[in-house]
């Protein structure tokens, strides 16, 4: 199983993502520069956090116009797992791969601390190793993580069980306490908290590792068993 971490100018959580997959999950992973990446040879696409293009115009907006987004859309259409964390989530929103948009945090502060999350849906390919209703802790680090969507979209997200993680103590003003959502087909996850920064009990928190293990389980169930 091969993971790709797409690196944009200004990405800064790409190494953390790489480390999580390579050293904690023990799977193959490459850092791929957004300009010369060929995503067709990868099974999972990871979009890391950071400040692609310095957050010019809107977070993720400039990155969403780069050519690689077409490849990411193709991978998503092929039902490959696509995970966008923090700025990666913003890129997925700006590309239209996920519904909604990001606003500056309610209190206008950049926030960098651990948050408690509730697992709302434990049946996605990203969350099967968690318990529905279970509480986990993940670090957040963002200035624009205030998820916004209109009422109709929010109702749709709820009806389709697309909300995967919510904050128990909403730090940024997100609609419906949303911390992470999947697309309708369930193979594109965007989330503001950083699972890749919580993969080792040695460093105090391994709650994020189960997210990567969920992807691995999903892939094995679909590829190895039927091989």
């Amino acid at each position, binding site marked *: 199983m091969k993971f790709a971490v797409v690196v944009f100018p200004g990405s800064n959580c790409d190494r953390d993502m790489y480390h999580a997959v390579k050293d904690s999950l023990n799977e193959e992973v490459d850092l791929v520069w957004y300009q010369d990446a060929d995503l067709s040879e990868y099974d999972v696409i990871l979009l890391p956090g950071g400040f692609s293009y310095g957050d010019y115009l809107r977070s993720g907006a400039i990155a969403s116009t780069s050519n690689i987004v077409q490849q990411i859309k193709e991978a998503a259409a092929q039902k490959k797992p696509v995970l966008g964390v923090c700025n990666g989530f913003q890129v997925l929103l700006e590309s239209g791969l996920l519904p909604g948009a990001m*606003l500056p945090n309610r209190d206008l502060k950049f926030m960098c601390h651990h948050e408690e999350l509730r697992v709302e849906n434990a049946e996605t390919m990203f969350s099967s190793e968690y318990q529905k209703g279970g509480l986990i802790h993940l670090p957040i680090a963002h200035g624009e993580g205030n998820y916004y969507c209109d009422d109709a979209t929010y109702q749709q997200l709820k009806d389709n069980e697309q909300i995967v993680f919510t904050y128990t103590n909403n730090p940024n003003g997100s609609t419906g306490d949303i911390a992470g959502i999947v697309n309708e087909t369930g193979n594109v996850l965007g989330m503001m908290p950083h699972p890749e920064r919580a993969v080792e009990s040695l460093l105090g928190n391994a709650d994020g590792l189960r997210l990567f293990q969920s992807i691995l389980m999903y892939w094995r169930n679909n590829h190895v068993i039927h091989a």
Partner: protein
Amino acid sequence: MRKVKVYITLKEGVLDPQGKAVKNSLNTLDYANVNEVRVGKYMEVMMEDAENLEAQVEEMCEKLLANPVIEDYSYQIEEVIA
């Protein structure tokens, strides 16, 4: 040559924490009659004239300059005399 003035504003109903902070600051400066501030963006796009210029500008706003989920846009197209 045309100068396109693009105005981006937050949609009505979308909270504007920045605008609220600016409003509070104006109140602190004793402008007690300021009730609300909404912060937006203004851009100037210089471009060669084209037959479908207005359609182009519309498309640019939809695709990139504004995020239609949270923002509204308007624009004026002006002639630039060299």
